[in-house]
């Protein structure tokens, strides 16, 4: 334990850090309730939900509610894929296999290659695919390609792929942390009792790692829901909410942008809250089950 004077100074520093983290965010929440006459900065001129109303009517030319729905849908899809693929890969990595090192390093590299480069690469890839498809359509006189095909880029193709290169490495690292601390004796016990591989996984492994999977899901959803850098060049025609929001920062000059900020942050907080609750419930259930089995906490 550090000396008292160090503890007090660092405690103050920590308090300032928390203020630094939350202060600006709180001002956005407060200013979202700015009166109708008020502007982008303090003081508050009254207290109203006027700007939420403005937001509801729609700001500028973009349809933010559609963008919001797109972001939610993409977030859920990315979340599910991230959980399933990270779990499968995490199980695979429990044993060494040919190419395991390469897969690991590619995943880590994906975290540290600048996002704009990844985004550019995916845009190029889809552009070349589009050119190839169009050329093929013309050469073989395929009616629908000539008439209708514009691009393969889109929310659930290029944008989803771009976001997965960002969410999956986090998922894999969490699975590594889980299986490094995983006690294999429960599995062995299940196998000794005659359970097959699938039953062993479902009855012994899955309940033990379920709380961690909630963490992977939280990463998957929120990283997708707020992602901009990788999605930006790989999105195609229809933007997600964060991308629209970024555009709005240069065009909207009234507190409705704070109202939007408060709403989308509220969604993030709601998701975190639900995840923490589910995590806590799963842990409680697991502890109860382990106690019934007479084992210790894993």
């Amino acid at each position, binding site marked *: 334990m550090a000396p008292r004077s160090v503890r007090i100074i660092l405690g103050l520093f920590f308090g300032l850090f928390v203020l630094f983290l939350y202060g600006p965010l709180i001002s956005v929440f407060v200013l979202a309730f700015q009166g109708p006459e008020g502007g982008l900065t303090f003081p508050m001129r009254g207290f109203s939900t006027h700007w939420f109303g403005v937001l509801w009517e729609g700001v500028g030319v973009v349809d933010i509610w559609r963008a919001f729905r797109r972001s939610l849908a993409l977030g859920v899809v990315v979340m599910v894929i991230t959980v399933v693929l990270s779990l*499968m890969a995490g199980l695979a990595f429990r044993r060494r296999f040919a190419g395991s090192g390469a897969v690991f390093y590619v995943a880590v590299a994906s975290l540290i290659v600048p996002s704009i480069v990844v985004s550019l*690469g995916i845009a190029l890839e889809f552009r070349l695919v589009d050119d190839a498809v169009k050329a093929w359509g013309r050469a073989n006189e395929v009616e629908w390609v000539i008439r209708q095909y514009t691009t393969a880029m889109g929310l659930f193709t290029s944008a989803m792929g771009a976001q997965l290169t960002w969410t999956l490495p986090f998922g894999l690292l969490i699975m590594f942390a889980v299986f490094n601390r995983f006690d294999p004796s429960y599995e062995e016990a299940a196998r000794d009792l005659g359970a097959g591989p699938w039953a062993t996984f479902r009855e012994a492994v899955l309940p033990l790692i379920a709380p961690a999977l909630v963490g992977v899901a939280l990463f998957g959803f929120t990283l997708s829901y707020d992602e901009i850098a990788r999605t930006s060049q790989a999105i195609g025609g229809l933007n997600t909410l964060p991308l629209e929001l970024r555009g709005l*920062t240069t065009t909207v000059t009234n507190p409705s942008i704070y109202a939007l900020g408060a709403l989308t942050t509220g969604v993030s907080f709601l998701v975190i809250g639900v995840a923490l609750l589910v995590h806590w419930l799963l842990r409680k259930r697991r502890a109860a089950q382990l106690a019934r089995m007479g084992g210790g906490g894993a």
Partner: protein
Amino acid sequence: MTRLARYSPYFLALPFALVFLAFFVVPLVLVVVVSFWDYTEYSIIPDFILTNYAEMFEGCLARLPDLCTTFATYLSTLKFVVLTWFFCLIIGFAVAYYLAFCVSSLHMQIVLFLICTIPFWTSNVIRMISWIPLLGRNGLVNEGLISAGLIEEPIEWLLYSSFSVTIAFVHLYALFMVVPIFNSMMRIDRSLIEAAYDGGANGWKTLTNVIIPLSKPGIVIGSIFVITIVMGDFLTVGVMGGQQIASVGKIIQVEMSYLQFPAAAANAVVLLMLTLLIIVAMTRIVDIRKEL
């Protein structure tokens, strides 16, 4: 072992690997390949030319010591990298140290750690614009300084400046430094610190001879994260710089908006090389895989 069990790791890892093949490896290869291609206003043409690179550095050596646009942009980007890295490191180390060594109960450690991480789960753009009410011309900082009688006119350089870009970077990414350093510090065997004190080392010596060396993996991982994010940034510099400050990421983004894919690719390759160089230099200090 059955045949199925022997091959199961491959089946399990295959979808994961395919995602990275399709959306990471192939795209990166394409960036390198296309950087040697030719282009017109509306098409990109397979070729092997060095024009894209030559245009990037056109006149750069001849004009020294004056900086060409490319050098100036890289210098500006590197300035943000160094500033952000420095402040994140100081804050990250101090906060992690406080959590690891000054908070005694595990329960309290978890609670305080969660408090630090929650803003990380919210939108970056919101966290950027949340500085406007504080740093704007009529923002809280200027109002406060004026009413305190310290200044008479509002300070103009608080917002849409290098200052606001740096503060936003630190605000967004300090956590990336806190988490790995905290992780490293929590693994330090407390008896080592006791032993250092018992051996007669004072607090400072214990810090520099025991705690900092053992926290090095966390420091390096956090540094790599912060540095690579700031290197490729176009968003924060754009929004917080009022679209007036240049960065390498922004050049790439602008070139793409004009569909000059090969030029953007050449810029991306140079950016990538520089980033990798920095990372290789840092990983010389630590083996990442051992730390997981």
